[in-house]
Structure formats: C-alpha cells, structure tokens
C-alpha cells in the first residue's frame, strides 16, 4: 500500500464517449465512488454513472422563484395600498385588486428563478475555480474539444496508487497518468 494523498488521483484517457461510459460503469462496479469524468459535451449516461444523486439545482430554482414572486407581490402591495394609496382609473385601493399585480409578480418570480438557476449551478459546481489539479494532466486541453477522461480521485476509500492505475490500464485507455496536486 503506497501513500495516496500525495496526488490528486489517477486519470485515464479514452477515445470515444462509449468507451468512457464502459469505463465509468466498470469503475462503479469495482466500487469506486469518488471519481469524475471529463468530456467535451454532456453525456447523460456518464453523468448518471458518476453522479446518480440529485443535482440540487431544481430546489434552488423553486425557492428563488417563490421568494421572488412573493416579495414582488408584497412590494407592490406596500407601494400601492399602504405607503401611497392613490386612486388611478377608479381601481380599488385594496388587495381585492390583486389580479392587476400578477404580471409584475410573475416577472419578479422568473427573474429570481433565473438568477437562482445560474448562480446556484455555478455555486454547486464550485465555479469560478481558476486552478484545478486536473489541468496538469497531459493532453487535458483536449477535454474541451475531442478527448474523454476518467479520473479516480485519491480521496476514494478504495484508492491505491498502484492498483487503481492498474485497474484503469485494464480498461483499454489511450493513456493513464497520475494527477499531481
């Protein structure tokens, strides 16, 4: 057993989405959990293998949307009925006139939900993150173009520097390399 915390993990490169998927399946079957795949486009099946759990984004969007809509409504009600009641066009100066406040309520909800979707996604992904160990891997610049990578991280309980590399070599990759911190 070699010390494993000196490196970030072991990375294998594959030539096609299908071989990456095969590798991810085999790695999962072998018991690895702390792993990640890197691909130039989203491959749904690989995402399912790597991260079967909930993404967390929908909850954030729902909460943000509801917060936005309700605060938009309350804000209008304060302005129209409490702070500065003003008779315009004979409309009732009371909450009974709520339908006229729906368009802005809706837009506020949408606006907050969109911010929630974008910034929630970025926050859950830990972005922006200018430096990451995987950028040290040779040929990793192809991961945004035409190459497919699978990385088993050293924090995985089953990780063993030698044996994990051996395991990845058995999946017929193009290359296997260690990822320095």
């Amino acid at each position: 057993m070699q010390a494993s915390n000196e490196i970030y993990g072991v990375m294998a490169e594959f030539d096609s989405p299908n071989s990456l998927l095969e590798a991810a399946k085999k790695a999962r079957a072998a018991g690895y959990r702390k792993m990640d795949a890197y691909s130039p486009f989203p491959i749904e099946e690989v995402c399912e293998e790597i991260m079967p759990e909930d993404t967390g984004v929908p909850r954030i969007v729902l909460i943000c949307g509801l917060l936005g809509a309700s605060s938009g409504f309350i804000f209008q009600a304060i302005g129209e009925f409490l702070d500065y009641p003003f008779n315009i066009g004979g409309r009732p100066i009371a909450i009974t006139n709520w339908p006229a406040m729906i368009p802005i309520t809706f837009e506020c909800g949408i606006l907050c939900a969109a911010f929630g979707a974008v910034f929630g996604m970025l926050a859950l992904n830990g972005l922006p993150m200018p430096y990451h160990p995987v950028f040290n891997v040779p040929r990793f610049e192809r991961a945004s173009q035409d190459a497919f990578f699978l990385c088993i991280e050293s924090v995985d309980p089953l990780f063993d520097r030698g044996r994990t590399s051996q395991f990845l070599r058995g999946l017929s990759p193009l290359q296997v390399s260690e990822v320095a911190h």
Partner: protein
Amino acid sequence: MAQAQPIRTAPQPDTGETYLLPGETYTSISSVIGDVPLTAPLKTPRAWFLGFGVAFALLMVFLVSVSWLFIRGVGIWGINIPVGWGMDIINFVWWIGIGHAGTLISAILLLLNQGWRNSINRFAEAMTLFAVACAGQYPILHLGRPWLFYWLFPFPNTHGMWPNFRSPLDWDVFAISTYATVSLLFWLVGLVPDFATLRDRSSNPLVKRIYGFAAVGWRGSARHWHRYEMASLLLAGISTPLVVSVHSIISLDFAVAQVPGWQVTVFPPYFVAGAVFAGFAMVLLLMIPVRAFYGFQSYITIRHLDVMAKVMLATGMLVVYGYFMEVFASLYSSSKYEQYLLYNRLSGPSAWAYYGLLFCNAVAIQPLWFRRVRQNIPALMVISAIVSVGMWLERYVIIVISLQRDFLPSSWAMYIPTVWDWSLYLGTFGLFFTLTFIFIRVLPMINIFEIRLLLHQETERAHRNEAAHGHGHDHGHGHDHGHTPNPAAAD
C-alpha cells in the same frame, strides 16, 4: 436529476435524415467553429471590416439622432396629438418581436427536444439580445425626459411616490428588463463551455487569459455537466412562459386602452405569433449570408432552413387568423368607432399600409407551402425580407391608423414621420449590426458543445439503425452510415 434528463434525449421518431452533413468529427467541429473567433485581428476577413464599417457608420447616425433629440426634444419627430405613439413605439414592438424568435429557438425547442436547434440557437439568442437592446432605446427616448428613465423603477425617493404597478406600461418595464436579463444569463451560461474550448485552443497567451477568465475554470466534469444541463433545462422552462408573457404584456399596452382597434381580446396570442413570425424571418435573413460566408453549410444545413421556413409559415398563418379576428371584432362589436376603424383601414388615408400588410404577411408567405421554395435560398431571403417589412407595417396599422382617427373627427390628425424618425430607425440598425459583427468576430457563433452532442446523438442513432437493419436483413446494403466508426458497439 434523473427525471429531467430523458426530456432532452428521448428517442425521436426517426425520419432517416440527419441535420449534420457526414464526415464531421469532434475535432473538426471544434476547429471549424472555434477558429473563427481565434483568428488573429489582422487576418480578419476584409468583408468583415466592410460590414462592420457600414454598421458602425449607421451607429453614428443613431448617435446623431439621439443627440439632436436630447437637444431639441421629441418635437423633432412627427408625433402629435392624437398620434402620440408614432415610430418609436412601432419600432419598439418590431424589434422586441424580432428578439422573440431567439428565445423560442433556445427555450421552447429545447423543451420540445428538437436537436436541430443546436446549430442556430447561439446566433438566434445573440439576435434576441441585440434586438432587445435596440427595442429598449425607444420607450426611454420616447419618455420626453429620457434622463429620468429610472423613475419607472420603484426606488426610495424624496417624492414619496411609487410607479403605478397596476398599469400595463409599468408591467412593460418589468417584463422587458426581466426578459433582457434572463436572455443574457441564458446566453452567457451557454457560452461557458465554449469559452473553455477557445481557452484550450488559443495559442496567444493574452487571448487564452481572456477566454480563460470568461470560462470560469470550466473543465467539463461530468458532475458539472449534470448540474449544467439541469440549469439549462430549467432556464428553458422559465424562459418559455417569460417570452409569452413579454409580448402579451406589450399587447396589453394596447388592449387595455379604449382606442378603436386596440381593444381586441385576441391581441396577446396574436402579438406573440407575430413576434415569432418576424423573428424567424430575421433569423433567416441573418443566418443565410453568415452561413455562406463562413462555410457553415455542414452545421446549418438546407434542412434547417426548410424547418425555419415551416415555422415561419405556421406562425404567419396564425397572424393571418389574427387579422380575420380583428375584422370580425370590428364588424361584430356594434360600436360605430370600431366599425369605422375597419372602413378607415380599408379606404382611409393610410390604407396603403393595410393592403401592404395583407400582401406581405398573408400572400407573400404562401409559396412556403412548397418544399422547392423552402429549400431555395434566394426565395427564402426575399420572402423573409418581405415579412420583415410586413410586420413593421402591421405595427404601423395598429398604432397609427387607430390613433389618426379615434373618436371625435375634430381631433383627427395625420401622422407623417420626419427625417429624425427615420434616422433613429436606421440608427438602431447600426446598433444591431455593430453588435452582431462584434459577436461573430469574438464569440463562437454556433454552440460548439451542442453540435458535438448532436454528432454523438446522430452517431448513436446510426448505430441503432444499423442494429435494427442487422436483425431485419441478412446481408448489408449500401446504406449511408458515413460516421459510424464502430458498428459493433450497438446493442
């Protein structure tokens, strides 16, 4: 999140046709599209400089028109009483309508799982943003004191007053600003993985840094993609009702008023259909030259143009239905003002606009029923240009003809746009095309990662077909499986 994923990639009825030309690989996609923004500044094609120069000159026309407006006020325009909403509001509605096609392509077609949208969504979304930027100028300039435009927003102020939240004009403020913000967010999110591609492909250290900064450290991790796809799907989901709400609210600016011709209940859906109609015409007008110039025929195929023409025809027919409903509403209203409006449209002083609109939006699109026309590029260009004019005339008819002769003949007046009305309109074209030219120069104008995804899906589909054929027939046949490197993988 598992339940949402199949929405995007559920198997489609297989028509046997592809939206990608064979022979493309992940590498070729990245380099062909990605190298346009990475070209060294001095190697920019001359035609780009020419186009940008013309657009920039028009932008200066905009600057002059706005400066003169600030100096002299809205009196330089042709507006009067009763026609207080002249070309500013016509152009506002026209531009914002053009923008709607972008959201339709990026959001609604994503939800409907139309893979062909991947080739055109980035461009269409950019068009949305720039059109909204142009549209946004008009209501502000039309305020009379444009420097006080922030009074439209609720903010703590010494007047102790609030905007009237129960007025369609204030709904407009919220709808347009929300629409602009959400469109920008959606567009920027879509750009992040492509920024990473540009970062990794550029050899110039400065360019690498700029794109690297914009890529926020994107590394294509499967966990990231998973959340990213979820966020895109949700953004599409919330943009869909948003885009419908925006043009509906704009139509309520009219429909809530009592002016004859404006009080029609069909207005919201009719306006939304008209917006999509005008927008698709503009997408075609812009896309066809860009596609030819940059050689993107493999990504924006003739089938894309065909489908866009179909959408244009369908929304155009919805708009024609709206015209019938308007006629019906005025005949059935038993209001003499509404009935007079129809007479005024058909034989009043601005009847040319009404007949022009009927020709452009109802007659000129009929050839699109034929595939030969839909796949004929010059014909599409001509029809799209006619539709763009027609949709402008539609807003002219709705706004100007109704206001010119409202209730009391003693208050009737003609509306004649002045040279400043036209120069401002021309100037917003300058703004639009300047932004467009900058966009096609510095950003990938086709969504690279989605084209890779499309290639992956097409390859998978070819595998499935091969497997199905393998079961059905004993021996092979010369079927086109151009990009199937490994048929054995199908199972």
